[in-house]
Structures are given as C-alpha cells and as structure tokens.
C-alpha cells in the first residue's frame, strides 16, 4: 500500500530557517536525509521523493473570467507550508508511521531532533475488492 508522507515546515520558518544554520548543522541534516532516502531505496519501499522550493516562490493561481491565470502571493512568512514529500510503498500503515517518525527526528541546530510534523496519508492506489 502506498502512502504520501508530507513534511510540513512550521509556521514562521518562512524561507527555510535551515539556510541560516551553521555549516555543520546543515550538513548533518542533509546527510541524515540522504541516508534516510538511501535506506528507503534499499528496503524496496521507495516510490518518489520531492523537495519543494521555499514559499517565496509560491503563487496562488486561479482562473480569471477569461480562463487566463490570475496569480496571488507569494506569502513567505505567513503560515506552515509543505517543504517536501515522499511516496512509499509499504506492507502496513504502521510501517509508514515508523518511517515518518524517523524522518520527523531529522537533526536540527546542535544535532537536536526537529520533530517536524509529517502528515501521512494513503495514496488512492488500491484495487477495488473482488466482489462489491
């Protein structure tokens, strides 16, 4: 079963607080995530991972009356935002939670775990039951 694990950067972190960390902290964080991704690939559970550009580059888009895009924003500092996501294919929801907890504890400044909130949701990819 497939799950999307969405990493939410907390409110107020704006253009990625990570960019102002010390080089050691930054490198430790990136190394952690690379190791995490490598382990996901080795366990045969990896489907996709994507990181998103910071909210300073985000626009809200709606269709105007003529169908042309009307853009709004960016809103860099205002709210919690999606920093990136994984899609994993695992044997149980518990395994998805376990992976999310691991990602949540990625190290922050001074090596202290960030406990980033990770939203875990099933991807609608199951076959329908044999008999309805």
């Amino acid at each position, binding site marked *: *079963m497939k799950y999307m694990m969405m990493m939410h950067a907390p409110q107020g972190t704006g253009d990625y607080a990570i960019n102002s960390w010390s080089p050691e902290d930054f490198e430790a964080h990136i190394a952690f995530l690379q190791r995490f991704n490598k382990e996901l*690939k*080795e*366990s*045969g*559970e*990896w*489907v*996709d991972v994507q990181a998103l550009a910071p909210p300073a580059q985000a626009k809200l888009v709606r269709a105007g009356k003529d169908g042309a895009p009307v853009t709004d924003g960016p809103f860099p500092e205002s709210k919690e935002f999606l920093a990136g996501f994984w899609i994993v*294919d695992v*044997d149980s*929801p518990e395994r998805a939670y376990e992976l999310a907890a691991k990602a949540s504890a990625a190290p922050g400044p001074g090596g202290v775990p960030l406990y980033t909130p990770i939203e875990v949701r*099933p*991807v*609608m*990819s*199951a*076959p*329908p*039951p*044999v*008999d*309805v």
Partner: protein
Amino acid sequence: MLRHSNTTDTDLGHLLRELAPQVLGAVARRHTDFAIAEDAMQEALLAAAEQWPAEGIPANPRGWLYHVALRRITDRLRSDLARRRREETVASDVWAEWAFVPSPDSDVGMDEDDTLVLLFMCCHPVLTPSSAIALTLRAVGGLTTAEIAGAFLVPEATMAQRISRAKQRIKASGIPFNMPTDGERAQRLSAVLHVLYLIFSEGYTSSAGPDLHRTDLSNEAIRLTRLLRARLPEDGEVAGLLALMLLTDARRAARTGPTGEIIPLDEQDRTLWDQRLIAEGTALVTEALSRGAVGPYQLQAAIAALHDEAARPEDTDWPQILALYGLLKRMSDNPMVALNHAIAVAMVHGPAAGLDLLKPLDTDARMRGTHRLDAVRAHLYEMSGDHNQAITHYRAAADRTASIPERNYLTLKAARLAAGQHTREPTLDADPTSPRT
C-alpha cells in the same frame, strides 16, 4: 511477457516463461545459492529475448537456457575465485564442480517437481506478502523486474531491491531448495495459494485508465495456478482456487463500465459473462467437491458458481449461497467471511437479520482500517429502505477506501440516494421495522 505487441514476440514470451521455472529449478538444484541461481536465470532469459528473435529459437531451448545460466554462474565464480586467491582461500572443489558446463544442445534432466519447489520457496511464510508476490512473479512467472514494477506502479530499482531482499531473506533463513516436509506441507501450500490469490486480486480491477497493466496480473495468477494444478491434480483446494479465479474472472467484461466505473453484480449485463470460463470453473469445483476434503477456496468457488449460473439476479439461489457461507464461517474465523455471510442472510431472511449479524463486527479489531463493514451496512440499510442510514454509511465507506473506482461507486450511491434517485426497488421487501425516508 506482459507487453509484447506482435504474435511472434508473444509466442516467444510464452515459451520463455513456460521454460523459466523448469530451468531455474534445475539450476537451483545444482547451485545451492538460490539468489545467484535466480539472477543467472534472469540473465539467461534476457539473453534469449535478445538473441532468439534474430537468430531463431534453438533446437533445444531448455538446454540453451540452462547452458547460458550456468555460464553466467561460472563466470561469476571465476571472478570471485580470482579475488579470493589473493586471500589464499581457494575453494578448489567448488571450482572443479563448476568448471563443467553442459553444451547448449545436451539434454537437461528436468524434475517435474521443480516448479512446485520454486513456488513453495517464493511463497515461504518468512517473506512479507509484497516480497513473496514480487519473487513469485519473477522466479516462477518469468516476468522481468521492469514488468513487475510496471504492474505495481513502483520504480524498477525499488522492485529490484524488493526481489533482492526477498532472496537474501530466504538465504538467511537457510531454507533448502526442497519440497516441504509432510509436517509443514499443508501450511506451506496454503501460503502458496494465498500469494496466488493476492496476485489475482491485485489484477482484478478496471481495464481502463492508469491501471491498465493490472488486469495482466489476473491472467498471470490464473496461469500460475494452472501450473500448480498440473503438479497437484489431486488437491481439492488448488482446484478450488483455480475455479474461484475462473468463475470470478468470467465476469470481468461486465464488471466495469466504459470509464472504469464499478458495476455491481446485480446490475451487470450477464450476457457479457464468459460462459467458457464459467463452464470450466464449475466443472472444476464440482469435481473437487465430490471428492470430500472440502476447503475454503472450494466453498468460495461454489458460491461464485451459483452467482454465475443465475441468468438474472432474481434467479440467484441465495438459500444455497447462505448454506455455503454458513459452512465457510464455521471453517474460518475471518471477519470478511462474516460480512458476506450477513449479506446472504439479508438476501434470504431480510435486511434486519443481516444488520443484526453485523453488530458484533463493530468490536472486531480486525475490521479496523477497513471500509467494508460500512459498505455492507450501507447496502443492507438501502435494502431495508432506511436511506438516511444508508447514505451515512456509504459516505463513511467512501471516506475510507483506498481504491478510486470504489470511492466513486460508494460516493455516487450516497449522492443518488440523497437526491432521491434510487433507480431500482430494493431487492427484497423492505423491513417494516425500519423507518422509511
């Protein structure tokens, strides 16, 4: 292979996939490291797929594959050995045994049971279901890693890793390439049947849209089950599983509409059902049941046969189906069986009786995380004429399924009831004790 476009390719694919488990069995018998044997076999299959279309199919295709697979292993051992020589731990006896590779046209002694041993190994209970499925499709089914990855919509590297880990797990568990002992045989066979049924269910979906490849998994499950049945013709449950697959697959064309939407059993165009499959499945299960030793797959097949032989929904022999679910329920403590039993009770004794039977399932921990209880309850409330309750439970089920076609089906059921458009009368007289909307 799964995606060949012309007949020649398809014929070649069929031949290769038929030979794959036989040759792998012979290689695995000779080389005790199953992981290495399986890799070599996969390389031999790829070499054949590349060379045979251009050079023609060899006179002895089995011998050719065996020869190439063994060559790959000797090449690998030779380079391993060269490395080890520097460490002065030359296993010369190993090398002596492996230096001899029979020529491509020599007759390869094949053991009829090898395919069976392979299935037992790939479906071993030490493996998780997803890795057993992947390994079975590759080692017994002869599918490429790319084809299996395509069927499950995961990257090829991920599937390769899953297969490789499954093989490591087998190696670490020290499972020999042998038939299970008599003592563990029943449990091991039931694991094989379970994996085959999982492959079938994965494939039992719409043939439209992004899930196109999945229907091929149903065909593959049927093919593998036929293979198993050819080796175990006396086993009633193997026959039962094959019959269940055929009798279910017979309804495939009628089961979904043009955009992949689900059409439930009682609304299907029964003229689209495949009578050839129904005849084959019915004969299989009838013969199996006549021998005694009745098991759950035979009972489910018998139920599927009763649905299939009804020309109209109202001709369905529900009392007989209810009796079979009664037997099945006594045989296995499975809440999904209890759910289906409740439906049969509702069809025979009215929806209120069925709804009563669902109550104990509310506290069954195994029902947590499934939407099926809500879906069945919604259906029974709709039968009883209690549309408010039906709408509530259809929506709850729609919120919890992970299947898009099923979500759409359940959502539309709720929406149509809410809009007052129930196109047909409930199948049974409404239960007078239930409030009407």
